[in-house]
């Protein structure tokens, strides 16, 4: 069993390295004597052929995609058209949200105060200093 493992390992190694002359002779002899080993060798040759002939490729347009990325590498981020576009999109969203919030605020003020005076918008006191003095005087008179 141990010899069989050893000769199998030798067979495996023979595909990828130059064996020592004595190892090579031993392997040749075993191959001549054993049909099992010859079958093992055939399977290994076939397996290597199948793996090495497997085709791999990228999808069409791969080169163009790489070149687009190369272009992006060369042009600073803020100068790229797509950066300006995305910046505009982001700000458009922020601006629209802001406008919507202001409209809702105005509407709620109008509904609660029934007016659009400066004081109702700023939440300021309707009494000016002058008015306050007259109010206090009026209080004293009563």
């Amino acid at each position, binding site marked *: 069993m141990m010899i069989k493992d050893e000769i199998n*390992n030798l067979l*495996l*190694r023979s*595909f*990828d*390295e130059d064996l020592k002359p004595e190892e090579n002779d031993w392997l040749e002899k075993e191959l001549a004597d054993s049909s099992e080993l010859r079958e093992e060798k055939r*399977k*290994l040759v*076939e*397996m*290597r052929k*199948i*793996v*090495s002939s*497997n*085709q*791999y*490729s*990228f*999808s069409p347009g*791969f*080169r163009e*995609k*790489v*070149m687009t*990325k*190369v*272009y992006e*590498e060369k042009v600073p981020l803020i100068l790229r058209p797509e950066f300006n576009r995305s910046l505009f999109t982001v700000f458009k969203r922020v601006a629209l949200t802001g406008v919507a919030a202001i409209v809702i605020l105005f509407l709620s003020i109008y509904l609660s105060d029934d007016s659009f005076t400066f004081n109702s918008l700023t939440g300021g006191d309707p009494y000016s200093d002058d008015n306050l003095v007259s109010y206090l005087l009026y209080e004293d008179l009563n």
Partner: protein
Amino acid sequence: MEDLTGLADLELVKLVDEGNDHAFSLIVSRYEGQVARTVKGMLGDRDGSEDVGQETFIRFYRSLKNYRGEASLGTYLSRIAINLSLNELNKRKKSFLFFSKKEDDNSSFDLAHPDDESYRADSKELVDKALQKLEPEQRMVVVLRLLQGYSTKETAEILDLPIGTVLSRLSRAQKKLKEILTPLI
């Protein structure tokens, strides 16, 4: 546009360094297939492997000044592709642990009859699955030696490994591949 197709790799690299994008486009054309074999051999023919392929060329573009032509351009790109593939495998491993998605098992793989049209696609799928069953350390050796056709010495140089390690990994990988690919041999 000038015809640069006859130029050697190093001359093209020099032109790219001078800002010639057409020269870089030619380099991509020349080595697209080789990078595809490395990346798809390592990661499988699925989503994400194409991004790693693109990233390989972009990394090369960024490090153009470091390339002095000591190794061939193919070897240099293979090294980048292997490293990026290993990074991607680590990322996938982390997300696999997180999402705990079960991988397909090939034990019940239905292989079409050799006369059938689908046999070719089936056998390709089985080879892909067989490669994915290998440990990444064994897989990268198989990819460089069997798919790319590098010698064991070149493989050892690309991976910066002792030649004995390359040989033992190859040996273990072949045993496993032979077992998995039995339906094809």
